[in-house]
């Protein structure tokens, strides 16, 4: 993680037009990819749980969601930090940004739902259903906003580095993505260990009662 960060700051030449602010790109983009991946995995784990009822799957879903919401918050915070210096605006309602915002809402809704249901079995059931429906929702949000923008022309923010990225930047991006993925895995594992411990304690408490 640190290595990727260091490399991004010191070894990548600043992109010509945008200067150092562009470096946020290496944090922002992989964060976004991992955030969406985290939600996808949460939904997938939920679906799998519905068929196997293995508590580890539900714990994974819970962990992936908590880690995912952190990454998504990161994306939503770094976006404006990048956007303001470059394009002069904090936020724009394009399909990508809006989808990310709704991903954030879905994560939060998912976690709030989990906190409101005490029965472990019910919690896992409801979470799985909400996560799966949420995964279905994102494409609809994306499409709706896309159609909205084709009808109402608004400021356009294209990807500043364009399709042709110098090899150096691609490498840094991939390295950053790798680093973020490792971070995700590490955080989810830590979170799962906590969840397993907590569930074991609860099990012992109820059987002793």
């Amino acid at each position, binding site marked *: 993680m640190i290595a990727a960060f260091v490399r991004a700051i010191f070894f990548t030449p600043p992109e010509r037009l945008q200067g150092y602010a562009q470096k946020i790109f290496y944090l922002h983009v992989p964060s976004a990819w991992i955030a969406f991946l985290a939600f996808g995995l949460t939904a997938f784990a939920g679906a799998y749980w519905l068929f196997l009822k293995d508590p580890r799957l539900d714990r994974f879903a819970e962990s992936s969601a908590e880690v995912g919401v952190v990454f998504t918050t990161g994306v939503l915070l770094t976006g404006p930090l990048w956007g303001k210096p470059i394009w002069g605006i904090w936020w724009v309602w394009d399909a990508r940004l809006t989808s990310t915002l709704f991903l954030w809402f879905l994560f939060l809704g998912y976690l709030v739902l989990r906190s409101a249901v005490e029965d*472990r*079995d019910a919690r896992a059931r409801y979470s799985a259903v909400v996560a799966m429906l949420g995964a279905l929702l994102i494409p609809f949000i994306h499409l709706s906003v896309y159609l909205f923008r084709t009808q109402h022309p608004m400021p356009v923010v294209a990807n500043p580095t364009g399709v042709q990225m110098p090899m150096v930047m691609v490498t840094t991006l991939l390295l950053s993505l790798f680093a973020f993925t490792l971070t995700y895995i590490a955080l989810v594992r830590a979170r799962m260990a906590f969840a397993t411990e907590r*569930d074991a304690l609860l099990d012992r408490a109820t*059987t002793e009662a």
Partner: protein
Amino acid sequence: MTVLLDAVGLVRLFGARRAVDGIDLALGAGEALALFGPNGAGKTTLLRILAGLLKPGAGRATIAGAALPADAARARIGLISHRTMLYDALTARENVRFAARLHGIADEPGATQRALETLRVADRADVPVRALSRGLQQRVAIARAIVHAPDVILADEPYTGLDEQGSAALTALLKERRAAGAALVVVTHHLHEGLAVASHAAVMRAGKFARLERTDGLDPARYAAEYRELVS
């Protein structure tokens, strides 16, 4: 004698807890099991499995030959609980008719009227349920449970909240159902009522039957004493 309820090896876990831990049970037409046991013994869980509301982790059960939890098996079950399961804004007649419709009874107004008359609530049938006393509500609930002439009646603490008259009426009704050929499982804390109604008695503890026997020849007082021993 036809076997109406047949359960083999039922197991149900909640997390690590074995709520039902290997239950075998067979009841024929006209037989009734009174199921006693301390709180948390698994009685309600067992009943819910037999009603098709829960799936067992292991084992299987059939109702009138049809495997649970399929629709065909559930169609032959009548469920009575300590909660009335009624819609209190609707009248008794509407509640029972709703159940009759869900079971697809051909002559639902007729069957509804008969069920209400059997439970002697026909004269208060067109009043919203919330206006009825607890005892009358329980009778409407039972009318709803038997409108489709179920082969198996499952009752979870049906004597709760009933006064002496209500209890006597319930016992009489359950015996009448037995005579008509239904099989019953009655979960209750009321040892005397349970023994009076049933042909068999069981005590459930920690998910298993600690004892299971026929009721003829049982002395209620001694059974009660032994029961207290068993569960303390």
